């Protein structure tokens, strides 16, 4: 290893230290060997400037991406959560956008966390929003193309969902809770458990929205997302939500119109 790489490996280790560097005698000695210091700052204090900023920069980036999660658990638990997160999941991407990509699995592993299932749901929701924000654009559904599809072809047609759409089944109504927290309701009450089928999507104006749908519609959307043609997708939806078999049967036409209007469906691929 060259001298430069050796220096950089030392810096990368030291700057991620959680405690102030001057409290560590060994690091203080190492800093004196590697850094000059000056008449205002000792070598270890020069390194401390960068260490402090490492933590501030990354904790503020996570706060930006997880306002709901931080609002649910409060400042003290939030600080512990992100400290543990950054220690166990060091930033490994060139973009801060990816910094929180393992927050859900981290929350799942934090047995000490209050309202843990709610927190898991919130982390999944907020990471989905991050993904949706800059997901690929797709041109809107072409009504002329729809009109030209022969009746028989619909049975095997593949319905293409918007790449900026996510399906999320949660145990708590976290989307509504997050909205209230972001609107400044700091005292928003922790809601009772209530499972929801969330469709998260980016509108044509590129704003993020959520909608709550029934079990039948959700199962159909999941089947379409998984690439099943229309008829097998409907069959699977009925199988997964048997109590909504009738709703699927009579609702599918209306759903498709609505989903096309909302931009959830962007194409129909006729083989």
């Amino acid at each position: 290893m060259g001298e430069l790489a050796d220096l950089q490996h030392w810096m990368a280790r030291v700057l991620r230290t959680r405690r102030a560097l001057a409290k560590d005698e060994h690091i203080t000695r190492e800093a004196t060997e590697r850094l000059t210091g000056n008449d205002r700052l000792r070598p270890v204090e020069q390194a401390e400037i960068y260490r402090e900023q490492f933590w501030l920069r990354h904790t503020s980036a996570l706060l930006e991406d997880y306002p709901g999660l931080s609002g649910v658990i409060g400042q003290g638990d939030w600080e512990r959560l992100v400290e543990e997160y950054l220690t166990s999941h060091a930033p490994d991407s060139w973009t801060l956008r990816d910094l929180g990509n393992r927050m859900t699995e981290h929350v799942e592993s934090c047995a000490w966390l209050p309202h843990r299932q709610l927190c898991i749901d919130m982390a999944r929701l907020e990471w989905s929003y991050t993904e949706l924000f800059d997901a690929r654009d797709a041109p809107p559904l072409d009504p002329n193309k729809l009109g030209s599809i022969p009746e028989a072809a619909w049975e095997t047609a593949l319905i293409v969902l918007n790449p900026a759409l996510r399906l999320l089944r949660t145990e708590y109504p976290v989307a509504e809770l997050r909205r209230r927290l972001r609107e400044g309701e700091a005292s928003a009450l922790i809601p009772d458990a209530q499972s929801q089928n969330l469709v998260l999507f980016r509108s044509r104006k590129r704003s993020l929205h959520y909608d709550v749908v029934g079990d039948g519609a959700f199962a159909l959307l999941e089947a379409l997302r998984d690439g099943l043609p229309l008829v097998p997708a409907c069959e699977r939806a009925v199988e997964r939500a048997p109590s909504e078999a009738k709703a699927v049967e009579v609702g599918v036409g209306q759903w498709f119109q609505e989903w096309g209007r909302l931009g959830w469906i962007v194409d129909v691929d006729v083989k």
Partner: protein
Amino acid sequence: MTEARLGCPDLGVGVGLRVPHYRHILDHRPAVDFFEIISENFMVDGGKPIYHLERVLETYRVIQHGVSLGIGGPEEPDTAYLERLKRLVDKVQPAWLSDHFCWCSADGVNLHDLLPLPYTEEAIEIVVERAKKIQDFLGVRFALENTSTYLNYTSSEMPEWEFIGRIAEQADIGLMFDVNNIYVSAYNHGFDPLEFVRNVPHERIVQIHLAGHMNVGTHIIDTHSGHVIDPVYDIYRETIAQAGAVPTLIEWDDDIPEFSLLVAEAEKARDIRSDALELKARRAAGKASATPDWPWARAIEERGPADAQLEGETHAGTVQGGWKQGGPRESESTAAE
């Protein structure tokens, strides 16, 4: 426009394109010489960032500035990063593209900071080789920027100006000359900023950055917040007087003001640039002194007791929230309408 520098045209005086100004810019299309984008904010698949960029490109010249290349790191620059950067270059078609003399990651950990390099022969060799490859790969004039630094390495073998000048010449790349960073580093390390300006290859300066900063007494942090202070404008004036008409950009990334205030700062820079070009002509005619008088620079170099008060108020403590390279990214929380 005047003569091109390393093939890069003089685009005038521009400002950084930042999220809080998108609505105003797209609604009113104000007169701006050029915008500089932070490349990483637009190296995404779609959504609002790409939409806004495409609308801006309809009207304005745009150049790219990056903060994540980490050209001097222990590993080669990330291939996937470079490929995404290349796709953005193809879309934006910038007249040039820049990043920093720095490193950002090691051991698979990205520190998301512009960490200083030691000024050594080994570092020169590494950065030169990579800079050549990157310039060839991107197919656009590449430039590297001197960073603000808060530490000095015992292993450094030369001053910063020699380090960056030699890399620029050996790799045949441009210099992104950040005169605020010169002031910040001069204050933090006690060197003469005029010596810095005099000893770089002026013909390789393809762009200048101007910005505000925060003085915390023991050191200055390059926050890109607030107005450009007079000593920084002094360095700017001298750079133009020595290097000529270099495109200039105002960076303002924290406590971002109304767009009109940002433009007013750019207009101030434009006036100073004009004065400096006249000064250059007078010097060439032997009608002006070639040495500026900067009392503040003597105070920095001598590190006298008054140096912490050079700029008036100092701010004790830390920069809350962490300084962000290139300002806020556009995210679900910060997105423009």
